[in-house]
């Protein structure tokens, strides 16, 4: 391979296979395009919501109207979004004859995505067991599995909408306590128009016996998805939660503006893992999901919250899963792999806000850029005046594949406590020709070699994921790099 060809191989980003890019042909109901108070009232009415929630939405909307979209992200390709050109609610129509059962087409869709909704098959060992799923299709949750088994332990796992009706006190107690409705432009938008999402409550001292997961699927064209997830781990409870997402291939952008709030009460332990595989757009940079997401958790005394994310999809990612370490001795980690190829742009990282004494946080970010993409780590570590002896360690590594892509690091450290310590390490590397040649000399194709090297680079983060997720993530990293080498 001469140098020119090598260069060509590295830089050419051919069509990658996005196997989740299909559309489900199903009868759906839509509300009219656009955003105003009537639309919000309509969404609220569709969900038969109580007055207090409508009030929350309208208050959020009024705040949102006074806000402007943040432009500080290193996201030159984030377009001006016409918020009046979006459909804010789309839902599959229920079969009139069988109102209680799931449409087989939906079941098939999730089956195709590897998300089994049939408990019987899972229990019979046909499908991998041990994971309860809340499946969200466009604006509604279509199925939540293993609810009975979980209910026996007092665990509530259901769609957000159902929680509003069945557990209004819990929802009211915790909603918007970590992400206030005026927190930022997209969080305000979500608070106004959110359609569904997952709700989860683990009672005091209960260790959730299986992993819980939400799977978000955008199907309808011209819509956005605005889900809301609220997770509460009560005192001493523990939980492992996973989130996955995909969307069809379309040549126009679609907006995904979610809010995730996690409340970790005293001595609780929550592990939250995401594998984000929204449609990234095509080789020319057309289409793809605009993933503008606010995720935040709060840790009370002695609580632990761990974020692990593998971000491989979306045209634009703007996302900073963050933790407020409020209670003394609370701890949090953020482990991230963000892979961008083609024309993708990701601006992602975390905020660790140390309030309590002896709080600890650790940040490990691995950015991988290929093609014409831009990949930025943006992080903030804040040590409050009361954060005596707090500690943070951050490590931000960037890996570049080819010469047309960019990697950037924007770390911010604010310390108001002299006894707190913050360490930051950063590296940037390239996949070297020597590494590639070494692999090919052993018979490993250049494409497999890149997959191998990238997976090795991301191992520290991937090893944090629950087993079945880790396998999926490894495949995604390899598949999403196909074409970035030849």
């Amino acid at each position, binding site marked *: 391979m001469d140098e020119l060809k090598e260069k060509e191989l590295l830089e050419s980003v051919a069509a990658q296979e996005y196997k989740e890019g299909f559309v489900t042909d199903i009868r759906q109901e839509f509300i009219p395009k656009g955003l105003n108070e009537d639309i919000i009232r309509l969404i609220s009415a569709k969900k038969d919501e109580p007055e207090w929630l409508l009030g929350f939405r309208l208050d959020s909307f009024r705040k949102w109207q006074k806000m402007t979209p943040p432009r500080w992200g290193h996201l030159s390709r984030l377009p001006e979004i016409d918020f009046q050109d979006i459909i804010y609610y789309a839902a599959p129509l229920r079969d009139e004859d069988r109102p209680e059962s799931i449409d087989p087409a939906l079941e098939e869709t999730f089956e195709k995505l590897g998300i089994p909704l049939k408990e019987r098959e899972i229990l019979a060992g046909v499908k991998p067991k041990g994971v309860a799923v809340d499946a969200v299709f466009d604006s509604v949750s279509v199925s939540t599995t293993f609810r009975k088994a979980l209910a026996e332990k007092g665990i509530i796992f259901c769609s957000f909408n159902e929680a509003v009706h069945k557990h209004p006190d819990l929802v009211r107690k915790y909603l918007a306590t970590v992400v206030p409705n005026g927190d930022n432009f997209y969080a305000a938008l979500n608070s106004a128009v959110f359609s569904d999402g997952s709700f989860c409550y683990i009672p005091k001292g209960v260790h959730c016996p299986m992993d819980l997961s939400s799977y978000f699927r955008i199907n309808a064209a011209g819509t956005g998805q605005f889900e809301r997830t609220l997770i509460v781990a009560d005192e001493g409870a523990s939980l492992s939660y996973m989130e996955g997402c995909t969307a069809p291939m379309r040549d126009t952008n679609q907006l995904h503006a979610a809010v995730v709030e996690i409340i970790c009460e005293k001595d609780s332990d929550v592990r939250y893992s995401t594998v984000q595989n929204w449609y990234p757009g095509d080789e020319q940079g057309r289409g793809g999901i605009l993933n503008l997401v606010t995720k935040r958790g709060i840790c009370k005394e002695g609580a632990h919250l761990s974020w692990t994310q593998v971000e491989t999809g979306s045209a634009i990612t703007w996302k900073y899963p963050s933790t407020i370490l409020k209670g003394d001795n609370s701890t949090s980690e953020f482990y991230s792999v963000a892979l961008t190829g083609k024309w993708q742009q990701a601006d992602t990282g975390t905020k660790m806000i140390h309030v309590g004494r002896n709080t600890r946080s650790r940040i490990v970010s691995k950015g991988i850029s290929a093609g014409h993409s831009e990949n930025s780590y943006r992080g903030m570590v804040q040590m409050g005046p009361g954060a005596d002896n707090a500690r943070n360690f951050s490590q931000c590594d960037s890996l570049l594949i080819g010469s047309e892509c960019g990697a950037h690091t924007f770390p911010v450290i604010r310390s108001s406590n002299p006894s707190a310590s913050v360490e930051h390490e950063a590296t940037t590397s390239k996949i070297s020709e020597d590494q590639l040649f*070494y692999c090919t*000399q052993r018979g*490993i194709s250049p494409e497999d070699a890149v997959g191998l090297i990238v997976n*090795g*680079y991301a191992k520290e983060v991937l090893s944090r994921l629950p087993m079945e997720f880790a396998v999926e993530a490894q495949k995604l990293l390899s598949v999403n790099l196909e074409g970035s080498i030849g």
Partner: protein
Amino acid sequence: MELIRITDLHAGIEGKEILKGINLTIGEGEVHAIMGPNGAGKSTLSAVLTGRPGYEVTGGTVEYKGRNLLEMTPEERSWAGIFMSFQYPIEIPGVSITAFMKAAVNAHRKAQGKSELSPAEYLKLLKTNMKLVQMKGEFAGRDVNVGFSGGEKKRGEIFQMAMLDPSLCILDETDSGLDVDALKIVSDGVNALRGPEKSALVITHYKRLLELIVPDKVHVLKDGRIVRSGGTELVEQIENEGYDSIHD
């Protein structure tokens, strides 16, 4: 039977000609040594034979197992049985020896139309070959060449060679940076792999490796040309009188 025939090979890097007409034929089962001073073109020869990017062939032919070697990609050459023990083995952080070799072995099997090895079969192969170079069990779990000592790196290369069962082994200055004990382990490993269908090209500066891996033929490379070919007596001459004593 002839395994590889190099005819009037000219090659270089960045427009500078380094190999100026190499002629060399290696038969099946033969071990050839190439000796030469620094800058003679020894490493360029191994790079060109394995298809390393950046090297340019400007003339001549290389026929390997009846195929035009120079038209093959590096991985195709590997599948066809060419293995090089690197002078400077490359680190691949986060990738274990186990995972790396599994990818390599299965790529070879795929190229041969065979199915992947089962985990049990693979493990057996791994253990057998680790024993060959006296590697402990933990070795398989370490990242490829990361934090390896000089000796471990070279033993690692011979281990990989054994795993891939090549027809032509190119040992590129495998003795450099090795102490006596490591050299013994490496050469024992190589000798154990010798056989009627295995050939080797041993590239070295020094006599000491060739006392342990005894070649069938010795070639002296100077300024991009093979200036003398013969038997092990050449090794003695170089040792006693230096490269300057050898001319066309």
